[in-house]
Protein backbone atom coordinates (compact mmCIF):
# COMPACT_ATOMS: atom_id res chain seq x y z
CA UNK A 1 0.00 0.00 0.00
CA UNK A 2 2.90 2.34 0.58
CA UNK A 3 5.51 3.07 -2.07
CA UNK A 4 9.16 3.40 -1.16
CA UNK A 5 10.71 6.81 -1.31
CA UNK A 6 11.46 8.48 -4.61
CA UNK A 7 12.22 11.94 -5.93
CA UNK A 8 9.77 13.74 -8.18
CA UNK A 9 9.89 16.30 -10.92
CA UNK A 10 7.10 17.85 -12.97
CA UNK A 11 8.82 19.23 -16.07
CA UNK A 12 7.10 21.71 -18.34
CA UNK A 13 8.50 20.37 -21.61
CA UNK A 14 9.57 17.11 -23.19
CA UNK A 15 13.13 18.34 -23.41
CA UNK A 16 13.18 19.05 -19.71
CA UNK A 17 11.78 15.60 -19.04
CA UNK A 18 14.46 14.02 -21.20
CA UNK A 19 17.03 15.98 -19.24
CA UNK A 20 15.80 14.46 -15.98
CA UNK A 21 15.79 10.98 -17.50
CA UNK A 22 19.33 11.41 -18.70
CA UNK A 23 20.47 12.66 -15.31
CA UNK A 24 18.69 9.74 -13.67
CA UNK A 25 20.94 7.28 -15.48
CA UNK A 26 18.26 4.63 -15.72
CA UNK A 27 16.89 5.02 -12.20
CA UNK A 28 14.13 7.40 -13.24
CA UNK A 29 10.72 6.46 -14.60
CA UNK A 30 8.11 8.37 -16.53
CA UNK A 31 4.75 8.94 -14.85
CA UNK A 32 1.80 9.67 -17.14
CA UNK A 33 -1.55 8.16 -16.16
CA UNK A 34 0.05 6.19 -13.38
CA UNK A 35 -2.61 3.49 -13.50
CA UNK A 36 0.00 0.82 -14.19
CA UNK A 37 3.01 2.40 -12.48
CA UNK A 38 1.52 3.55 -9.19
CA UNK A 39 0.04 0.11 -8.37
CA UNK A 40 3.49 -1.36 -8.95
CA UNK A 41 5.04 1.25 -6.68
CA UNK A 42 2.49 0.48 -3.99
CA UNK A 43 3.25 -3.22 -4.09
CA UNK A 44 6.95 -2.33 -4.26
CA UNK A 45 7.36 -4.30 -7.48
CA UNK A 46 9.03 -1.13 -8.77
CA UNK A 47 11.21 1.21 -6.73
CA UNK A 48 12.66 3.91 -9.00
CA UNK A 49 14.68 6.68 -7.47
CA UNK A 50 12.87 9.40 -9.36
CA UNK A 51 9.53 9.89 -11.06
CA UNK A 52 9.19 12.31 -13.93
CA UNK A 53 5.60 13.43 -14.29
CA UNK A 54 4.54 14.35 -17.81
CA UNK A 55 1.16 15.75 -16.79
CA UNK A 56 2.30 19.36 -16.66
CA UNK A 57 3.60 19.34 -20.23
CA UNK A 58 1.13 21.12 -22.48
CA UNK A 59 0.10 19.96 -25.90
CA UNK A 60 0.31 16.22 -25.41
CA UNK A 61 -3.36 15.33 -25.27
CA UNK A 62 -4.33 15.49 -28.92
CA UNK A 63 -6.04 13.02 -31.20
CA UNK A 64 -5.30 14.12 -34.74
CA UNK A 65 -7.01 12.41 -37.64
CA UNK A 66 -5.48 13.51 -40.91
CA UNK A 67 -7.34 13.73 -44.19
CA UNK A 68 -5.86 10.42 -45.29
CA UNK A 69 -7.19 8.75 -42.15
CA UNK A 70 -3.90 8.36 -40.35
CA UNK A 71 -4.14 9.01 -36.65
CA UNK A 72 -1.73 10.51 -34.16
CA UNK A 73 -2.47 10.07 -30.47
CA UNK A 74 -0.50 12.18 -28.02
CA UNK A 75 1.16 10.82 -24.89
CA UNK A 76 -1.41 12.26 -22.49
CA UNK A 77 -4.56 11.06 -24.24
CA UNK A 78 -6.53 9.13 -21.63
CA UNK A 79 -8.32 5.85 -22.39
CA UNK A 80 -11.54 7.73 -21.93
CA UNK A 81 -10.50 10.22 -24.59
CA UNK A 82 -10.32 7.40 -27.09
CA UNK A 83 -13.61 5.99 -25.85
CA UNK A 84 -15.41 9.27 -26.29
CA UNK A 85 -14.03 10.42 -29.59
CA UNK A 86 -16.74 10.11 -32.20
CA UNK A 87 -14.26 10.83 -34.97
CA UNK A 88 -12.10 7.93 -33.84
CA UNK A 89 -15.14 5.71 -33.67
CA UNK A 90 -15.70 6.37 -37.35
CA UNK A 91 -12.06 6.37 -38.43
CA UNK A 92 -10.81 3.31 -36.52
CA UNK A 93 -13.56 1.21 -34.97
CA UNK A 94 -10.98 -1.24 -33.60
CA UNK A 95 -9.76 1.44 -31.22
CA UNK A 96 -13.23 2.45 -30.21
CA UNK A 97 -14.21 -1.13 -29.49
CA UNK A 98 -11.18 -1.74 -27.32
CA UNK A 99 -11.42 1.56 -25.47
CA UNK A 100 -14.40 0.66 -23.36
CA UNK A 101 -12.86 -2.66 -22.39
CA UNK A 102 -9.67 -1.30 -20.89
CA UNK A 103 -9.65 -1.72 -17.09
CA UNK A 104 -12.71 0.03 -15.61
CA UNK A 105 -14.41 3.39 -16.18
CA UNK A 106 -12.58 5.15 -13.39
CA UNK A 107 -9.12 3.96 -14.36
CA UNK A 108 -9.93 5.08 -17.88
CA UNK A 109 -10.21 8.72 -16.86
CA UNK A 110 -6.56 8.78 -15.96
CA UNK A 111 -4.63 6.00 -17.66
CA UNK A 112 -3.12 6.88 -21.02
CA UNK A 113 -3.12 5.05 -24.33
CA UNK A 114 0.58 5.61 -24.99
CA UNK A 115 1.54 4.77 -21.41
CA UNK A 116 -0.36 1.54 -21.66
CA UNK A 117 1.43 0.57 -24.86
CA UNK A 118 4.76 1.36 -23.20
CA UNK A 119 3.86 -0.79 -20.21
CA UNK A 120 3.98 -3.77 -22.58
CA UNK A 121 1.69 -5.99 -20.55
CA UNK A 122 1.20 -9.22 -22.48
CA UNK A 123 -2.47 -8.88 -21.67
CA UNK A 124 -2.60 -5.26 -22.68
CA UNK A 125 -5.48 -4.27 -24.91
CA UNK A 126 -3.76 -1.36 -26.61
CA UNK A 127 -0.64 -3.23 -27.58
CA UNK A 128 -2.85 -5.76 -29.32
CA UNK A 129 -4.84 -3.03 -31.04
CA UNK A 130 -1.70 -1.21 -32.16
CA UNK A 131 -0.21 -4.42 -33.51
CA UNK A 132 -3.33 -5.24 -35.46
CA UNK A 133 -3.42 -1.70 -36.82
CA UNK A 134 0.24 -1.77 -37.81
CA UNK A 135 0.91 1.30 -35.73
CA UNK A 136 4.15 2.68 -34.44
CA UNK A 137 5.42 4.71 -31.52
CA UNK A 138 7.26 7.97 -31.93
CA UNK A 139 10.00 8.23 -29.35
CA UNK A 140 11.91 11.36 -28.46
CA UNK A 141 15.38 11.34 -26.90
CA UNK A 142 18.24 13.75 -26.49
CA UNK A 143 19.16 13.40 -30.14
CA UNK A 144 15.67 13.83 -31.57
CA UNK A 145 12.76 11.58 -32.53
CA UNK A 146 12.50 8.17 -34.11
CA UNK A 147 9.72 5.82 -35.14
CA UNK A 148 9.51 2.36 -33.65
CA UNK A 149 7.17 -0.21 -35.19
CA UNK A 150 5.15 -2.23 -32.69
CA UNK A 151 7.04 -5.44 -33.42
CA UNK A 152 10.26 -3.70 -32.51
CA UNK A 153 8.75 -1.80 -29.64
CA UNK A 154 7.69 -4.66 -27.38
CA UNK A 155 10.66 -6.81 -26.49
CA UNK A 156 8.98 -9.05 -23.93
CA UNK A 157 6.65 -8.95 -20.97
CA UNK A 158 6.77 -5.42 -19.53
CA UNK A 159 9.83 -4.60 -21.63
CA UNK A 160 9.89 -2.01 -24.35
CA UNK A 161 12.75 -0.92 -26.55
CA UNK A 162 12.90 2.71 -25.44
CA UNK A 163 16.31 3.87 -24.33
CA UNK A 164 16.48 4.86 -20.69
CA UNK A 165 16.25 8.51 -21.66
CA UNK A 166 13.65 8.29 -24.40
CA UNK A 167 10.01 9.17 -24.01
CA UNK A 168 7.19 7.84 -26.17
CA UNK A 169 5.48 11.06 -27.23
CA UNK A 170 2.83 9.77 -29.58
CA UNK A 171 1.32 6.71 -31.17
CA UNK A 172 0.67 6.70 -34.87
CA UNK A 173 -1.83 4.60 -36.74
CA UNK A 174 -1.16 4.58 -40.48
CA UNK A 175 -3.67 5.66 -43.06
CA UNK A 176 -5.94 2.87 -44.19
CA UNK A 177 -6.31 1.75 -47.78
CA UNK A 178 -9.99 2.08 -48.46
CA UNK A 179 -12.27 1.77 -45.45
CA UNK A 180 -10.99 0.87 -42.01
CA UNK A 181 -13.22 -1.65 -40.25
CA UNK A 182 -12.60 -3.80 -37.26
CA UNK A 183 -13.44 -4.55 -33.68
CA UNK A 184 -12.10 -5.88 -30.42
CA UNK A 185 -13.44 -8.65 -28.22
CA UNK A 186 -12.17 -9.60 -24.81
CA UNK A 187 -13.17 -12.45 -22.56
CA UNK A 188 -12.98 -11.17 -19.02
CA UNK A 189 -14.87 -12.74 -16.13
CA UNK A 190 -15.70 -9.32 -14.86
CA UNK A 191 -14.92 -5.67 -15.61
CA UNK A 192 -11.28 -5.02 -14.79
CA UNK A 193 -10.17 -8.64 -14.89
CA UNK A 194 -7.19 -9.66 -16.96
CA UNK A 195 -8.18 -11.06 -20.32
CA UNK A 196 -8.61 -14.78 -20.62
CA UNK A 197 -8.08 -14.00 -24.27
CA UNK A 198 -8.68 -11.02 -26.48
CA UNK A 199 -8.67 -10.40 -30.19
CA UNK A 200 -8.07 -7.18 -32.10
CA UNK A 201 -9.11 -7.17 -35.73
CA UNK A 202 -8.31 -4.28 -38.09
CA UNK A 203 -9.15 -4.70 -41.76
CA UNK A 204 -8.95 -2.37 -44.70
CA UNK A 205 -11.62 -2.99 -47.30
CA UNK A 206 -11.40 -1.55 -50.80
CA UNK A 207 -13.63 -2.34 -53.70
CA UNK A 208 -15.29 -5.07 -51.71
CA UNK A 209 -12.00 -6.89 -51.07
CA UNK A 210 -9.94 -7.12 -47.95
CA UNK A 211 -6.69 -5.39 -48.85
CA UNK A 212 -5.12 -5.49 -45.41
CA UNK A 213 -5.86 -7.79 -42.50
CA UNK A 214 -4.32 -7.07 -39.14
CA UNK A 215 -5.14 -9.38 -36.27
CA UNK A 216 -3.42 -9.44 -32.90
CA UNK A 217 -4.07 -11.32 -29.70
CA UNK A 218 -3.59 -10.62 -26.01
CA UNK A 219 -3.61 -12.99 -23.09
CA UNK A 220 -2.65 -16.02 -25.14
CA UNK A 221 1.10 -15.94 -24.89
CA UNK A 222 4.04 -14.34 -23.16
CA UNK A 223 3.50 -11.24 -25.26
CA UNK A 224 1.08 -9.75 -27.74
CA UNK A 225 0.70 -12.19 -30.61
CA UNK A 226 0.85 -10.67 -34.06
CA UNK A 227 -1.36 -12.94 -36.14
CA UNK A 228 -1.16 -10.92 -39.32
CA UNK A 229 0.42 -13.81 -41.21
CA UNK A 230 -2.39 -16.12 -40.18
CA UNK A 231 -4.87 -13.42 -41.18
CA UNK A 232 -3.39 -13.20 -44.67
CA UNK A 233 -5.88 -15.83 -45.83
CA UNK A 234 -8.37 -12.98 -45.89
CA UNK A 235 -6.41 -10.72 -48.18
CA UNK A 236 -7.27 -10.17 -51.82
CA UNK A 237 -10.86 -11.29 -51.63
CA UNK A 238 -14.16 -10.35 -50.08
CA UNK A 239 -15.03 -11.68 -46.69
CA UNK A 240 -16.89 -14.96 -46.98
CA UNK A 241 -17.90 -17.72 -44.64
CA UNK A 242 -15.01 -19.81 -45.98
CA UNK A 243 -12.32 -17.18 -45.54
CA UNK A 244 -13.68 -16.29 -42.12
CA UNK A 245 -13.48 -19.89 -41.00
CA UNK A 246 -9.99 -20.30 -42.44
CA UNK A 247 -8.82 -17.11 -40.75
CA UNK A 248 -10.33 -18.07 -37.42
CA UNK A 249 -8.56 -21.42 -37.49
CA UNK A 250 -5.26 -20.00 -38.64
CA UNK A 251 -5.27 -17.25 -36.04
CA UNK A 252 -6.17 -19.70 -33.28
CA UNK A 253 -3.23 -21.84 -34.35
CA UNK A 254 -0.95 -18.81 -34.14
CA UNK A 255 -1.83 -18.22 -30.50
CA UNK A 256 0.58 -19.46 -27.82
CA UNK A 257 -1.72 -19.81 -24.85
CA UNK A 258 -0.74 -21.35 -21.54
CA UNK A 259 -2.95 -23.41 -19.29
CA UNK A 260 -3.72 -21.58 -16.06
CA UNK A 261 -6.63 -20.88 -13.76
CA UNK A 262 -8.41 -18.99 -16.53
CA UNK A 263 -8.51 -22.03 -18.72
CA UNK A 264 -6.63 -24.63 -20.67
CA UNK A 265 -4.61 -23.66 -23.71
CA UNK A 266 -7.17 -25.46 -25.88
CA UNK A 267 -9.93 -23.39 -24.36
CA UNK A 268 -8.10 -20.16 -25.02
CA UNK A 269 -7.53 -21.16 -28.61
CA UNK A 270 -11.24 -21.85 -28.87
CA UNK A 271 -11.97 -18.34 -27.60
CA UNK A 272 -9.60 -16.83 -30.13
CA UNK A 273 -11.23 -18.79 -32.91
CA UNK A 274 -14.71 -17.83 -31.78
CA UNK A 275 -13.89 -14.16 -31.41
CA UNK A 276 -12.15 -13.90 -34.78
CA UNK A 277 -15.12 -15.55 -36.38
CA UNK A 278 -17.64 -13.32 -34.62
CA UNK A 279 -15.80 -10.11 -35.39
CA UNK A 280 -15.31 -10.96 -39.04
CA UNK A 281 -18.89 -12.16 -39.41
CA UNK A 282 -20.09 -8.93 -37.83
CA UNK A 283 -18.02 -6.94 -40.30
CA UNK A 284 -19.25 -9.00 -43.21
CA UNK A 285 -22.87 -8.52 -42.22
CA UNK A 286 -22.53 -4.78 -41.81
CA UNK A 287 -20.59 -4.46 -45.05
CA UNK A 288 -23.42 -6.26 -46.77
CA UNK A 289 -25.85 -3.82 -45.27
CA UNK A 290 -23.75 -0.92 -46.44
CA UNK A 291 -23.34 -2.37 -49.90
Amino acid sequence: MYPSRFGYEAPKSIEEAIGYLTAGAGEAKILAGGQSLVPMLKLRFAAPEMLIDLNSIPGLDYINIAADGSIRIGALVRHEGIERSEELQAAQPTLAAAASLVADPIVRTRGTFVGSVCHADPQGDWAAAMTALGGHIVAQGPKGTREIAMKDFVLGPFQNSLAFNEIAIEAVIPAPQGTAVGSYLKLERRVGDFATASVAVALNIQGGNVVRAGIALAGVGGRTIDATEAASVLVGKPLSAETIQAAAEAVAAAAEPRTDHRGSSDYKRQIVKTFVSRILTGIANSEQKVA
Partner: protein
Amino acid sequence: MSSLYDEVTPTPPSDVPTRRVTIDVNGEPRTVDVEPRLLLAHLLRQGLKMTGTHTGCDTTNCGACTVLFDGRPIKSCTMLAVQADGHSVETVEGLASASELHPIQEGFKQEHGLHCGFCTPGMMLAAKALLEENPNPTEDEIRWALSGNLCRCTGYQNIVKSVLWAAEKMRAESN
Protein backbone atom coordinates in the same frame (compact mmCIF):
# COMPACT_ATOMS: atom_id res chain seq x y z
CA MET B 1 0.15 25.25 5.85
CA SER B 2 0.55 21.94 7.61
CA SER B 3 2.82 19.01 7.20
CA LEU B 4 1.58 15.52 7.30
CA TYR B 5 1.09 13.81 10.62
CA ASP B 6 2.31 16.71 12.69
CA GLU B 7 -0.71 16.56 14.90
CA VAL B 8 -0.19 12.93 15.72
CA THR B 9 3.51 12.27 15.57
CA PRO B 10 6.68 14.29 15.25
CA THR B 11 7.41 15.67 11.82
CA PRO B 12 9.39 13.30 9.61
CA PRO B 13 13.18 13.60 9.74
CA SER B 14 14.10 16.85 8.07
CA ASP B 15 16.39 15.31 5.50
CA VAL B 16 13.41 13.79 3.71
CA PRO B 17 12.63 16.09 0.80
CA THR B 18 9.08 17.33 0.57
CA ARG B 19 7.24 19.42 -1.98
CA ARG B 20 4.82 22.19 -1.26
CA VAL B 21 1.56 21.71 -3.10
CA THR B 22 -1.65 23.67 -3.24
CA ILE B 23 -4.80 21.76 -4.01
CA ASP B 24 -8.33 23.08 -4.28
CA VAL B 25 -10.25 20.69 -2.05
CA ASN B 26 -14.00 21.10 -2.14
CA GLY B 27 -13.59 24.70 -3.21
CA GLU B 28 -11.00 25.65 -0.61
CA PRO B 29 -7.27 25.95 -1.39
CA ARG B 30 -5.18 23.76 0.89
CA THR B 31 -1.41 24.04 0.96
CA VAL B 32 0.65 21.20 2.40
CA ASP B 33 4.22 19.94 2.40
CA VAL B 34 4.23 16.33 1.31
CA GLU B 35 6.66 13.59 0.37
CA PRO B 36 6.32 12.66 -3.32
CA ARG B 37 5.40 9.11 -2.41
CA LEU B 38 2.37 10.15 -0.36
CA LEU B 39 -0.82 8.92 -2.03
CA LEU B 40 -3.59 11.44 -2.57
CA ALA B 41 -5.97 9.24 -0.58
CA HIS B 42 -3.66 9.40 2.42
CA LEU B 43 -3.22 13.16 2.12
CA LEU B 44 -7.00 13.53 2.25
CA ARG B 45 -7.48 11.12 5.11
CA GLN B 46 -4.50 11.75 7.37
CA GLY B 47 -3.12 15.08 6.26
CA LEU B 48 -6.37 16.95 5.80
CA LYS B 49 -8.36 14.84 8.28
CA MET B 50 -11.11 14.17 5.75
CA THR B 51 -11.82 10.53 6.38
CA GLY B 52 -14.85 10.22 4.13
CA THR B 53 -12.60 8.89 1.34
CA HIS B 54 -11.81 5.25 2.11
CA THR B 55 -9.17 2.77 0.98
CA GLY B 56 -10.40 -0.74 0.29
CA CYS B 57 -7.75 -2.63 -1.66
CA ASP B 58 -4.11 -2.66 -2.71
CA THR B 59 -4.54 -3.08 -6.44
CA THR B 60 -6.63 -0.16 -7.73
CA ASN B 61 -9.67 -2.39 -8.18
CA CYS B 62 -12.27 -1.43 -5.61
CA GLY B 63 -12.90 2.29 -6.14
CA ALA B 64 -13.69 3.03 -2.49
CA CYS B 65 -11.17 5.86 -2.76
CA THR B 66 -12.89 7.54 -5.73
CA VAL B 67 -12.83 11.34 -5.72
CA LEU B 68 -13.47 13.85 -8.49
CA PHE B 69 -10.25 15.32 -9.94
CA ASP B 70 -10.96 18.34 -12.09
CA GLY B 71 -14.48 16.96 -12.24
CA ARG B 72 -13.58 13.44 -13.43
CA PRO B 73 -13.64 10.40 -11.16
CA ILE B 74 -10.24 8.98 -10.25
CA LYS B 75 -9.00 6.44 -7.75
CA SER B 76 -7.20 8.61 -5.23
CA CYS B 77 -5.12 5.68 -4.01
CA THR B 78 -3.47 5.59 -7.43
CA MET B 79 -2.54 9.23 -7.66
CA LEU B 80 0.31 10.87 -5.82
CA ALA B 81 -0.66 13.90 -3.77
CA VAL B 82 1.99 15.93 -5.58
CA GLN B 83 0.20 15.30 -8.86
CA ALA B 84 -2.84 17.17 -7.55
CA ASP B 85 -0.87 20.41 -7.22
CA GLY B 86 -2.85 23.15 -8.94
CA HIS B 87 -5.86 20.95 -9.53
CA SER B 88 -9.24 20.59 -7.88
CA VAL B 89 -10.37 17.63 -5.86
CA GLU B 90 -13.93 17.01 -4.76
CA THR B 91 -14.59 14.53 -1.99
CA VAL B 92 -17.76 13.25 -0.36
CA GLU B 93 -17.42 16.00 2.21
CA GLY B 94 -18.01 18.48 -0.57
CA LEU B 95 -21.27 17.00 -1.81
CA ALA B 96 -23.64 18.63 0.62
CA SER B 97 -23.98 22.39 0.82
CA ALA B 98 -24.19 24.10 4.20
CA SER B 99 -27.95 23.60 4.29
CA GLU B 100 -28.79 20.77 1.93
CA LEU B 101 -27.79 17.32 0.92
CA HIS B 102 -26.91 16.67 -2.68
CA PRO B 103 -29.71 14.78 -4.48
CA ILE B 104 -27.36 11.84 -4.83
CA GLN B 105 -26.95 11.67 -1.08
CA GLU B 106 -30.71 11.90 -0.65
CA GLY B 107 -31.23 9.24 -3.26
CA PHE B 108 -28.93 6.80 -1.50
CA LYS B 109 -30.87 7.31 1.68
CA GLN B 110 -34.30 7.09 0.09
CA GLU B 111 -33.58 3.98 -1.91
CA HIS B 112 -31.42 2.14 0.64
CA GLY B 113 -28.31 2.36 -1.50
CA LEU B 114 -25.95 1.59 1.35
CA HIS B 115 -25.54 -0.89 4.18
CA CYS B 116 -22.13 -0.54 5.81
CA GLY B 117 -21.36 2.73 4.05
CA PHE B 118 -17.75 1.93 3.21
CA CYS B 119 -18.03 1.98 -0.60
CA THR B 120 -20.64 4.73 -0.52
CA PRO B 121 -18.57 7.91 -0.85
CA GLY B 122 -16.74 6.57 -3.91
CA MET B 123 -19.97 5.21 -5.36
CA MET B 124 -21.76 8.54 -4.96
CA LEU B 125 -18.96 10.53 -6.55
CA ALA B 126 -18.76 8.18 -9.51
CA ALA B 127 -22.53 8.57 -9.84
CA LYS B 128 -22.21 12.35 -9.66
CA ALA B 129 -19.72 12.32 -12.50
CA LEU B 130 -22.12 10.19 -14.54
CA LEU B 131 -25.13 12.40 -13.93
CA GLU B 132 -23.23 15.52 -14.83
CA GLU B 133 -22.68 14.14 -18.30
CA ASN B 134 -25.76 12.00 -18.65
CA PRO B 135 -28.72 13.41 -16.71
CA ASN B 136 -31.06 10.64 -17.81
CA PRO B 137 -29.12 7.39 -17.72
CA THR B 138 -30.59 3.94 -18.24
CA GLU B 139 -30.05 1.21 -15.70
CA ASP B 140 -27.37 -0.33 -17.93
CA GLU B 141 -25.57 2.99 -18.25
CA ILE B 142 -25.54 3.36 -14.48
CA ARG B 143 -24.23 -0.17 -13.94
CA TRP B 144 -21.52 0.42 -16.54
CA ALA B 145 -20.48 3.74 -15.04
CA LEU B 146 -20.24 2.19 -11.58
CA SER B 147 -18.40 -0.94 -12.69
CA GLY B 148 -15.19 0.47 -11.22
CA ASN B 149 -16.71 0.62 -7.72
CA LEU B 150 -17.12 -2.59 -5.74
CA CYS B 151 -19.79 -3.14 -3.11
CA ARG B 152 -20.05 -6.19 -0.89
CA CYS B 153 -23.26 -5.44 0.91
CA THR B 154 -26.04 -4.18 -1.29
CA GLY B 155 -26.07 -6.28 -4.44
CA TYR B 156 -26.04 -3.02 -6.43
CA GLN B 157 -29.74 -3.08 -7.30
CA ASN B 158 -30.65 -0.40 -4.79
CA ILE B 159 -27.58 1.62 -5.71
CA VAL B 160 -28.96 1.77 -9.24
CA LYS B 161 -32.32 2.84 -7.87
CA SER B 162 -30.63 5.50 -5.76
CA VAL B 163 -28.93 6.98 -8.80
CA LEU B 164 -32.17 6.91 -10.78
CA TRP B 165 -33.90 8.69 -7.90
CA ALA B 166 -31.20 11.34 -7.83
CA ALA B 167 -31.28 11.75 -11.59
CA GLU B 168 -35.00 12.38 -11.53
CA LYS B 169 -34.69 14.92 -8.76
CA MET B 170 -31.84 16.72 -10.49
CA ARG B 171 -33.75 16.88 -13.76
CA ALA B 172 -36.77 18.29 -11.94
CA GLU B 173 -34.65 20.86 -10.15
CA SER B 174 -33.01 22.05 -13.32
CA ASN B 175 -36.39 22.61 -15.00
